[in-house]
């Protein structure tokens, strides 16, 4: 059969337009649109004492200026708290335009609309905003110390205290043969997709309807938010995510102020309005992630088995909490990884700072959790003089323990019950792939060359495919074309290809006949969004179910026509065939025509379905009760809970003790995301994730000064890796299909990034023998660390020095 494409490395269909410049990204839409630009706060914390727009008024081409005073009704209220949670006791969100106070550099204050962006920016820079500066809080430690408050009425700066526990941790620690405690930090980075955000809005004054294009990961919810905020009826608003130039999480947040203000202006002005975010705006006005301070106490026995784990985290959520405490919850619950943790307590205090909001960035709290757990494993191994892989092995959940219930509550409000996996299998593959047992030989070889070599590993479990649901619609047209729609959006994951593969396989049609639409509320208005490695799991399964519905209907109609039992029919290459009876067949396109009884023949094919085309059964209506015209089906997939993918990474680093440059000489990945729709696409996701993991470990950080000014808000200064910084990646696969969904899929989008920081920290620590407790780490910081007499030596270093094995 040629149509069983599930699991094949099918080349991507979206590439045909993208490689010839025919993609359609946000700023490619609406050449005649007016342009919006924003006056944004230059201060991290200030009261606005005045806005003087007079200087802008004589700029030729200026169309409109909006401040908070121009907002009414729901637009004058704070932006929504998208994901409320009982433990988020002090949520705060900003306004579409600042209402008297700004809480981070980059917060929008004034929107200017002009005939083009150049002129809009001319006008914006002539608007004078006066401020009364307020004390600034930057970083979790300052937030925790609370010498000042970010929001006056929240004096301790704590937005939420997220707390989960699986038993009584204090007596469990007291009863543990051994304990150790440590504190570590992880810094901020950001998604930084190559295309920033952007919004285009067009108001049809006659129809009183609004079409919005947004570079978003959640078009259906943007639609609902616009309708609610602008007082429009939902059916009068359509939102489309066109080609989106990367997301990585930042575009799941919504409604961004611009997603409301641009439509507001388009309606008020009766003209198309567009805003395309520039790179500096993206750094200072979108979202970041990852800064945490982690205090960890672990109890363990002489074999390195964990007996109890107590974790207290301070999580920097930036100035506002529009995305609730999802990142803290994910850190808290994914921290336990592939391990048996008999008693676990975690508290995450989510604190306000005068910095850009913190919302999910690929991994979404998992890299921090992995960093906490995996560095704990390293510490136990070091204390006991055990191989780090052995300590991990002894703590792993075994393959016969699934489903494994951690007795925690995940970000979807559902229990953390691992559905399937083989963690010892992952570890065995990883050791072989990276050459774990040869590390000492490599170390000696590097030492002979004057280099310090170290190896590290990290394992993770990733909850993927959270609900509540996604849907799919599959329709066969009389032309034979198969239209597929799902509501969630695409940002480069190749959904047009992988969803087409699913439909081609399920329905038995050539993939060339399948057309997939994502993220267009006109085609599918019910959806949640693309985040949390959920698109293939959620929409993939929904589309498969929809295709199965179409197949069932097609076989029913074909059985009538061919006078056969549906059980004897098969579909291949778009033709329904009575199995073993050559010549007894009917094309799906004909079934599509017959499925819709007609009065009018609008084309040649349609004639077959008209009322005098052939003898009918006069005892039944043309459309039977319970049936519907058309060869189409809509279905939904709503999971009982998330499905848990897993993996293990290892890194070998070589460090030059003259420059302290850190070179990753080997990076090994073992990856398990269950059944794979398209292995080429999954490997691509792993590659990209690893690059971001390496970036977060060695290069990227948001360099805020103490005044809350982001000192590196450009690609000149924020060290996003080029090809020269990303190591070659060796990948091995394992597949433990999910028993939770029809296709056995687990998510793959975020996996690559999760263990990078932990594995690389471990490798550097192994190389230099100094405790690495703050990531990312630059050559300068490493130099300072090894030269600091107070920096902590590892036990392994001391032992190795004693035996003379260390250079």
């Amino acid at each position, binding site marked *: 059969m040629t149509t069983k494409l599930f699991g094949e490395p099918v080349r991507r269909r979206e590439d045909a337009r993208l*490689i010839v410049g025919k993609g359609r990204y946000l700023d490619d839409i609406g050449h005649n649109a007016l342009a919006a630009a924003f006056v944004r706060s230059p201060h991290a914390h200030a009261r606005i004492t005045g806005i003087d727009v007079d200087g802008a008024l004589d700029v030729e081409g200026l169309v409109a200026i909006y401040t908070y005073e121009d907002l009414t009704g729901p637009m004058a209220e704070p932006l929504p708290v998208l994901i409320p949670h009982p433990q988020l006791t002090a949520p705060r969100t900003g306004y579409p335009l600042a209402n008297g106070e700004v809480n981070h550099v980059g917060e929008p204050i004034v929107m200017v609309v002009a005939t083009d962006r150049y002129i809009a920016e001319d006008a914006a820079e002539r608007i004078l905003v006066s401020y009364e500066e307020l004390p600034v809080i930057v970083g979790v430690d300052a937030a925790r110390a609370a010498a000042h408050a970010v929001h006056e009425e929240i004096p301790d700066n704590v937005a939420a205290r997220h707390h989960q526990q699986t038993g009584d941790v204090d007596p469990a620690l007291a009863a543990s043969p051994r304990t150790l405690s440590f504190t570590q930090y992880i810094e901020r980075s950001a998604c930084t997709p190559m295309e920033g955000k952007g919004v285009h809005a067009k108001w049809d004054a006659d129809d009183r309807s609004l079409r919005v294009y947004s570079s978003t990961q959640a078009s259906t919810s943007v639609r609902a938010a616009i309708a609610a905020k602008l007082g429009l009826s939902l059916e009068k608003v359509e939102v489309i995510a066109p080609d989106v130039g990367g997301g990585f999480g930042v575009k799941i947040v919504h409604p961004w102020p611009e997603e409301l203000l641009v439509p507001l202006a388009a309606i008020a002005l009766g003209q198309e309005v567009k805003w395309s975010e520039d790179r500096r705006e993206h750094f200072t006005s979108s979202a970041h992630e990852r800064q945490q301070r982690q205090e960890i106490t672990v109890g363990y026995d002489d074999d390195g088995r964990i007996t109890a784990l107590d974790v207290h985290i301070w999580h920097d959520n930036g100035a506002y909490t529009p995305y609730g405490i999802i990142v803290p919850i994910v850190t808290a619950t994914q921290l336990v990884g592939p391990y048996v943790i008999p008693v676990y307590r975690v508290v995450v205090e989510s604190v306000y700072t005068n910095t850009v909001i913190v919302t999910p960035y690929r991994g979404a709290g998992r890299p921090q959790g992995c960093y906490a757990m995996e560095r704990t494993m390293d510490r136990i191994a070091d204390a006991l003089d055990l191989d780090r892989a052995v300590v991990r092995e002894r703590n792993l959940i075994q393959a016969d323990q699934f489903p494994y219930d951690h007795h925690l509550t995940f970000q979807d409000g559902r229990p953390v019950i691992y559905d399937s996996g083989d963690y010892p299998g992952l570890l065995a593959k990883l050791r072989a792939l990276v050459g774990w047992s040869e590390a000492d030989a490599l170390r000696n070889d590097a030492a002979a060359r004057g280099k310090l070599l170290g190896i590290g590993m990290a394992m993770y479990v990733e909850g993927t495919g959270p609900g509540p649901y996604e849907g799919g619609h599959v329709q066969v047209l009389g032309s034979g074309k198969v239209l597929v729609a799902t509501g969630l959006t695409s940002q480069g994951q190749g959904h047009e290809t992988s969803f087409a593969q699913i439909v081609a396989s399920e329905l038995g049609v050539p993939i060339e006949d399948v057309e997939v639409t994502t993220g267009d509320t006109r085609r599918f208005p019910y959806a949640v969004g693309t985040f949390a490695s959920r698109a293939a799991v959620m929409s993939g399964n929904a589309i498969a179910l929809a295709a199965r519905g179409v197949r069932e209907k097609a076989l029913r109609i074909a059985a009538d026509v061919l006078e056969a039992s549906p059980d004897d029919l098969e579909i291949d290459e778009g033709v329904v065939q009575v199995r073993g009876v050559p010549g007894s067949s009917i094309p799906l396109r004909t079934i599509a025509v017959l499925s819709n009884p007609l009065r009018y023949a609008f084309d040649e094919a349609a004639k077959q379905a008209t009322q005098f085309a052939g003898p009918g059964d006069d005892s039944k209506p043309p459309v039977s009760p319970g049936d519907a015209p058309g060869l189409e089906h809509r279905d939904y997939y709503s999971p009982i809970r998330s499905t848990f993918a897993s993996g293990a990474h290892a890194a070998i680093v070589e460090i030059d003790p003259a420059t302290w440059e850190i070179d990753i000489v080997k990076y090994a990945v073992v990856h398990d995301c269950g059944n794979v729709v398209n292995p080429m696409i999954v490997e691509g996701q792993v590659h990209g994730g690893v690059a971001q993991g390496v970036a977060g470990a060695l290069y990227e950080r948001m360099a805020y000064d103490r005044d809350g000014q982001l000192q590196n808000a450009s690609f000149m200064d924020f060290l996003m890796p080029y090809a020269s910084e990303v190591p070659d990646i060796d990948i091995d696969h394992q597949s433990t299909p999910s028993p939770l969904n029809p296709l056995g899929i687990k998510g793959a989008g975020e996996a690559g990034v999760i263990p990078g920081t932990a594995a690389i920290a471990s490798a550097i620590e192994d190389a230099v023998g100094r405790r690495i407790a703050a990531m990312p780490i630059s050559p300068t910081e490493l130099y300072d660390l090894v030269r600091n007499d107070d920096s902590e030596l590892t036990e392994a270093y001391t032992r190795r020095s004693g035996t003379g094995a260390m250079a």
Partner: protein
Amino acid sequence: MTTVDTERTVTVTVNGVPRETTVPVRRLLSDALRHDLGLTGTHVGCEHGVCGSCTVLVDGDPVRSCLMLAVQVEGRSVTTVEGLARDDHRGGQVLHPVQEAFRECHALQCGFCTPGFLMTIAAGLDKRDPAAELTEEEVDDMVGGNLCRCTGYANITKAVHSAAAAMRDAR
């Protein structure tokens, strides 16, 4: 009223076609290509010359069109991603080998940075002796100056090798 712009008419050959456009003197080449000439295949990722998404060829050399003014290409020849494929004189197009290789090697995901990579690599490949062995230094030179956030670069590097091999075989 304050008028901040003065305009110039620019005559430039774009993708082999003579074009004339009247633009404010401060208009970036990237904006002129995208918004005045409607060639939106050239993308703008940073507007400070670091990411390379906006790379086009000016008289055959890769140039960051966000760092050049439209008036600077007066009388010159510009090639954008829309002009990378050849006309097959039968109503279709023949893709440049690097375009084929990008699709074959999964060297793009979101596709936003792709035009910049394609133009830079195409310029590099077109200038070299296709019979010569492709060195890692050459590959690094062709991919090392552009940013991609999706692919981790591995498949882009692979695509350069693949395109070079195709060009060698097609000699």
